[in-house]
């Protein structure tokens, strides 16, 4: 019986071993070698890691990745939470709103990237078509979005609103937060009715109910979304690659670690160096995930504990 079970598991296990485990382990080995893909690897010790520490472009990519993660993850979670709360309301057409909020998540990455390219077009894009008339009445210039390497703010000297390429990328990521919202919504609906009734009897207002009843109840899902968000945002590749034609521009403003890995591995013949960067990224994601779990242990409420 056990042997037959192994037969059924074997295709999956073989696939896992060949396409996941083997590349995973071999990439660790390659990270300690000088490997161009086209020549056999030669041992290089910690040279790749040392070079990464001193590489200003890697440091820029790493800084950008952290910034992007912060700008995409926190607003993403808040927005999804807000949407879920709204979707949980008993109003007419709930099913329609739920579908409408989830549908953007189903749009292919390339299509949504191109759509956003048009929305963020500084000259004739939808966003600036609204902003420009408003800002020009007070003598200010609208942001140039994907063409601007700065972050965000106001330039009083040039009377210009700054919203640069990296924040634009983060703004784009909010487009797909419907999936997160649906997960929150499912959890909102699991909150026991008696808790609401007890809170009402105690005279709790809507804010108190949200903070002291709903938030603790849905906290396991928040932790789940935070962990998935950390993993996802640190690995984002397709959107900046499409929007910047593979350059991470302007002037490395949207150059993130996954793009650094890709370019070094496949364009610069430095697979060993790219593997070292990939392992550093993996370590960072693992550390942040661990930190999220540690924080979660104290703050997440699991029923029955």
């Amino acid at each position, binding site marked *: 019986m056990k042997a037959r079970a192994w037969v059924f598991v074997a295709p999956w296990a073989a696939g896992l071993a060949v396409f996941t485990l083997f590349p995973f382990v071999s990439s660790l080995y390659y990270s300690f070698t*000088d490997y*161009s*893909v*086209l*020549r*056999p690897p*030669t041992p290089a010790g910690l040279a790749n890691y040392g*070079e990464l520490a001193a590489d*200003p*472009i890697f440091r820029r990519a790493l800084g950008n990745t952290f910034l992007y993660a912060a700008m995409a993850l926190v607003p993403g979670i808040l927005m999804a939470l807000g949407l879920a709360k709204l979707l949980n309301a008993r109003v007419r057409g709930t099913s329609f709103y739920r579908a409408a909020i989830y549908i953007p998540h189903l749009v292919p990455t390339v299509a949504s990237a191109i759509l956003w390219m048009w929305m963020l*077009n*500084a*000259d*004739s*894009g939808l966003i600036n078509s609204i902003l420009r008339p408003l800002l*020009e009445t007070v003598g200010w*210039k*609208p942001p*140039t*979005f*994907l*063409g*601007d*390497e*700065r972050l965000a703010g106001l330039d009083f000297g*040039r009377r*210009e609103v700054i919203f640069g390429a990296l924040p634009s990328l983060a703004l784009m990521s909010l487009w797909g937060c419907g999936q997160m919202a649906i997960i929150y919504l499912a959890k909102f609906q699991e909150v026991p009715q008696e808790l609401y009734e007890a809170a009402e009897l105690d005279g709790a207002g809507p804010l108190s109910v949200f903070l002291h009843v709903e938030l603790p109840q849905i906290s396991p899902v928040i932790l789940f979304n935070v962990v998935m968000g950390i993993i996802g945002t640190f690995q984002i590749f397709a959107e900046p690659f499409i929007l910047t034609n593979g*350059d991470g*521009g*302007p*002037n*490395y403003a949207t150059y993130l670690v996954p793009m650094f890995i890709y*370019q070094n591995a*496949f*364009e*610069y*013949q430095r697979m060993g160096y790219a593997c070292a960067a990939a392992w550093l990224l993996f370590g960072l994601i693992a550390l942040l995930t661990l930190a999220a779990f540690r924080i979660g242990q104290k703050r997440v409420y699991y029923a029955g504990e």
Partner: protein
Amino acid sequence: MKTPYVLVLALFVLAAVAVLRDRPPSIEETVRAGYQFHRASADDLTDGSIVHLTYWEKWNNFEGEAMQACVDAFNEHSRAALNSTDPEARRRFLSPEGRRIYVHLLSTTQVNQKAKLAVSGGLPPDVAGLWSRDVPVFAQYNAATPLDEFLKRDGPAPPEYQPCYWEMCVYEGHVWALPTSPSTVAMYWNKDLFREAGLDPDRPPRTLEELDAYNRKLTRRDESGRLARMGFHPSEPGWWNYGWGNWFGGAHATPDGRTLLLDSKEWVAAYTWLNKLAEDYGRSEMRTFKSGLGTFDSPQNAFISGKVAIVLQGVWMANYIRVYKPSMQWGVAPFPGPGGDAQDPVCLAQADVLVIPRGCKHPEEAWRFVRYVNSRGDPKDPDAPVEGMEILCLGQGKHTPFRGMTEAFQRKHPHEDLGWFIKLGESKHVYIEPMMPMWEEIRRSCAASYDELMSKGDQPGYGPQEVLTRLKNRLQPKLDQEWERIDRARKAGGHRP
């Protein structure tokens, strides 16, 4: 009740038919030379004696069609050679064992990266269509087959080519590739907009000062002060932003590729000129204007739609003007970079190339095909048919990398100013991309430094000299390391050929 719906539907269908009927001719229809060769059916190809070649190429659309026409011609020649008694035809188009050769063209995106990985995996295509900038990488890392022996045996000889295109195929004294379609970059100007601005439509700017003056006259702002049209915008199309120093006579590196020259006075002059442009027209305004320009292959193309009056472009631009705005009046002249003069203008040249990846199954047969693409009819023979390279370049609307062309090619070619692009390739001041394995990283870094200058050039620490010095100081140690790795591999015997 149903009648209105039926009417609306009928109107919609009628409108769709009208739109489709009035659509402009496609580029394929306009440019393609119309060669229809025998395309073998599946039945023809089941014969086990045929040698099947796999050929990966980057092109699609009409450029892919042009190459397919060339492939069809070769396949047809090989079929005919099988029953021929002409020893020359058999030698050129059949395998060494006298078998028919059939080339399968596969359009492949990111073909250079995929070909590299395929070589590494031991299953490369027989022929790969790359860019000239890939030649040093494929040569240095043992990913291509050297062609020296083939060339010695069968030709063609270097003097048949314009020297710049031949140079792109040679790395450290060996030939690793042969060119397919070449490109030189020139200045296109819109005569209608010149006329409107009160400029002589037949006199393009001849110096950089004139270009600046023309730019001022041609540039228009709307009532809110926004740029509505520019005479010249250096980021349109922005494909060669890594090479502005070349137009001022500067080079990226020393000829041995070991020392970068990015902070030379020519580069500083180029960046000073660019910085002045950004200063004059406004950094934010230029960014906004650029972001509103349409994509290259569309009627919204900045030059075709009249948003930019002067652009740097390759020979192919005429193909797109012909399709999207055939009524437009335009001219071509060398870009007035101070790195050249009236006799020998400055110019950038690039080429697409064919390589035979190392480890492919049929290198001898692949060479037969590469050799055919690098052939043409005798230019001295007025009745010579269009063959090989000329089929490809006619279909793509380009000139060829060869010196001279057949009468049939000249007669059929749709480009009115082809001569300029050929002449530019012959110039003393023609620049080709440096033949160094780290070029891709240097190229991208130079383009990023251009962005940095145009965005922050007015801030302390971001002037032309500072941006360039920082760029060089960052890249030179990387280049030194790259050469160390290469020299180490050479010493360990892992170097070809």
